[in-house]
């Protein structure tokens, strides 16, 4: 049973090892360079750097991310439905299952239409 997870363990080791190797290599190879405060400052075409290097994100990104999470949850429920569809549609619970998902997707479709009509999916607005 536990042997089944050896590939997962190997993948974790390879991923972690790669990250560690990159860190060690950059430390070993980058050590010789001389650093000073001026050298470490951001390069802005020869001008003196002004302000913060990090720009603030627009709130539009948050809106899109939130809508993504909401419809991601919908897919979480669609997945067991799709897996069970073939075996359940022939049983007596078949129609219950179809209407159950129709109701679920139907209610969420209202939310989708709302977001669409309000222009939430329109980037330019």
């Amino acid at each position, binding site marked *: 049973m536990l042997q089944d997870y050896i590939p997962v363990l190997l993948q974790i080791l390879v991923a972690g090892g790669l990250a560690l190797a990159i860190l060690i290599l950059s430390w070993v190879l980058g050590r010789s360079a001389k650093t000073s405060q001026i050298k470490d400052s951001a390069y802005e075409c020869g001008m003196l750097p002004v302000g913060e290097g990090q720009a603030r994100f627009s709130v539009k990104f*948050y809106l899109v991310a939130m809508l993504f*999470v909401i419809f991601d949850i919908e897919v979480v*429920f669609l997945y067991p439905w799709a897996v069970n569809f073939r075996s359940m549609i022939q049983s007596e619970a078949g129609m219950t299952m179809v209407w159950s998902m129709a109701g679920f997707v139907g209610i*969420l479709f209202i*939310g989708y239409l709302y977001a669409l009509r309000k222009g939430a999916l329109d980037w330019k*607005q």
Partner: protein
Amino acid sequence: MPQALFYLFAAFAVLGAFGVIVNRNPVSSAFSLIGCFVSIAALFIGLNAYFIGTIQVLVYTGAIMVLFLFIIMLLDLRAEERRPLNLGAVLAGLGTGLTFLVMSSVVIGRFPEGGRGMPELKAVAGSDVHELGRVIFTDFNFPLQIIAVLLVSATVGVVVLCKKELH
């Protein structure tokens, strides 16, 4: 799952949770939270709940963490400054935690159920996704529709909050 592995992943989960509050940089905190979520996913898989474990990784570490990082970037948070420890607050916190520990151990000790181990999990024939789907779409039909309504209200909420100019 062997007991040693359970304790290993449980320790990782607690370490990750600890890292969230110890790290002063919000992005480091968010990445500690990822470690915590992945360890919890490993615990789910140890309980033979493969679907829940996968969803834990996909939804929590995938989607929810993206949301957290977006919020960190939106608010443009910097590393928090270290504040001198407030002795009164530290003592009160320790006292509260200790009281909770003593109280919960006494309450659990009073009941015979407290000493019993967890019941054995029912062995599932086939995949747990089949079992889960059968239960959701027959016995838990109504809660499923409630979840849909909840998600719609979340959609409306985020649109109202983010779109100031409603038309």
